[in-house]
């Protein structure tokens, strides 16, 4: 792969930013670190969500389902296998489910896909609850000696990997194919692109990532039951953060996650009943006030500045 000068620069910036973020636990402030874990988690989820949904325009609400599956893989396996082996296993299982769901629904229009993914978390929750009732135990314990800073660092590493992967996909044939699919799927088919396979491939990436995140977060829950592992709200939060930042660029979701997480924390601590309302208003604000998210706004401002300097 030939690297241009700009690529090295971006890579350097990314590494520096990551290293700086890794210093957070040194503050020793428990609240800050816990907030850091949330932000790091949402950065990974929203970025990997946007890798798939950005170019294809399919809105996936399956994040909570994959996340929950990952949590459960960790919860049911930790007694028998090591933590580090369970992370890739969670990714594999999440990816496999994503592949099956993708093959069944990604051939069809976006509406079918949204509906299907919307119910996926709830359906998985029902199935897990039923299975647990059948076998007679209610929840499982995940007991590890991992602390919040450990989880935070793990999530940062994962975030770095997701960014690298996204960057590599953006430069690959697959990335080019996805941009064409996003513009016009019929044209994509007629120039010889396997549209279904390309979409499924990216959906698998985002599904596997969400499952790994779920597995990483599991030790924080300590006690896992279906209602905590499968929270439909998570899917919506991820969608909003990614769209708020903008899916047009790799760094878009990142700039959406930070303000939204802070806002969410503030609202849910002072008005715990109003989070739903906040979620709804954010959706409407993105559609009517900020289409394209912060990235779209940035591009428009840049375009305007360029036009002005061209005229001057």
């Amino acid at each position, binding site marked *: 792969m030939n690297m241009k000068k700009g690529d090295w620069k971006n890579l350097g910036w990314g590494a520096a930013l990551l290293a700086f973020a890794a210093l957070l636990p040194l503050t020793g402030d428990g609240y800050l670190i816990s907030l850091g874990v949330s932000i790091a988690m949402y950065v990974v989820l929203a970025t990997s969500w946007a890798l798939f949904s950005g170019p294809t325009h399919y809105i996936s609400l399956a994040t909570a389902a994959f996340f929950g599956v990952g949590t459960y893989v960790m919860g049911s396996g930790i007694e028998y296998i090591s933590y580090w082996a369970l992370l890739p296993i969670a990714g594999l299982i999440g990816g496999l489910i994503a592949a099956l769901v993708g093959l069944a629904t990604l051939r069809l229009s976006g509406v079918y896909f949204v509906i299907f993914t919307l119910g996926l978390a709830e359906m998985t929750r029902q199935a897990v609850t039923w299975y647990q009732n059948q076998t007679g135990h209610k929840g499982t314990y995940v007991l590890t000696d991992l602390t919040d800073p450990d989880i935070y660092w793990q999530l940062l590493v994962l975030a770095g990997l997701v960014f690298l992967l996204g960057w590599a996909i953006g430069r690959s*044939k697959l990335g080019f194919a996805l*941009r*064409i699919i996003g513009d*016009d799927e019929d*044209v*994509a088919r*007629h120039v*010889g692109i396997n549209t279904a396979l390309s979409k499924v491939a990216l959906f698998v990436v985002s599904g596997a990532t969400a499952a790994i995140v779920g597995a990483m977060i599991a030790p924080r829950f300590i006690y896992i039951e279906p209602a905590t592992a499968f929270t439909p709200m998570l899917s919506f939060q991820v969608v909003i953060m990614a769209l708020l930042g903008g899916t047009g660029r790799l760094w878009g979701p990142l700039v959406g996650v930070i303000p939204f997480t802070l806002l969410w924390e503030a609202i849910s601590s002072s008005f715990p009943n109003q989070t739903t309302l906040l979620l709804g208003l954010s959706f409407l604000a993105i559609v009517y006030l900020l289409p394209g998210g912060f990235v779209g706004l940035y591009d428009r401002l840049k375009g305007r500045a360029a036009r002005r300097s061209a005229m001057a």
Partner: protein
Amino acid sequence: MTAPTVISLRGATKQFGGLVAVDNVSFDVREHQVLGLIGPNGSGKSTTLNLISGALPATDGDITLRGGTITGLPAREIARKGVSRTFQLVRLLPSMNVLENVMAGAVFGHRRRWGASAERHALQVLEKIGMADKAKASVGQLTYIDTKRVELARALSGETEVLLLDEWLAGLNPTELTEGIDLIHQLRDEGRTIILVEHVMDAIRSLCDTCVVMSSGKKIAEGSTDDVLSDPEVIRAYLGDDDA
């Protein structure tokens, strides 16, 4: 000695519910031949083209490319085997510039290239159709004929075996039309195999070696362009019974 057959239709049929849009149509296209698929509106020409390109699956019949069956294959595989097309209403990729639009064909088409090689090749194709200077332009800024050129370049850049043009000349003004016909002439002189759905009679006369005439989904005539266009049945199909 005749050139080998590239595309061959045998009893190709397409039904939409009760409507038979293409009814048992058979014809052959030979290498280096420009074949005009003509007929009145709604006669099934575009549908026939869609069957060849794989945009629609045929209800019945066989379509082969150099002897290999392509009936029922998805559009992407037919494209990869060397059949590429333009659309009746121009379809460019709005978020990409001219060069990237053409590269789409070079990267995923019949002969696949990637990276610098794909870019070089796409530029060559743009040069050939006279648009090298607009390679970095966004497609929103193009004139109508230029959008058609870009679409043509995209179809060509995969080094396709057969080119399907669906009313490529429609909607052009007189000056553009001359330019357009010259461009297709140039492709014809290169010895390309082309199937052309067209209404513009001047273009058909000067470009097509042979014509297949369709009416109400059926093939009603086939032969050299001059013969076909003077066939009384063809004239009747175009002008209606009263005028014949």
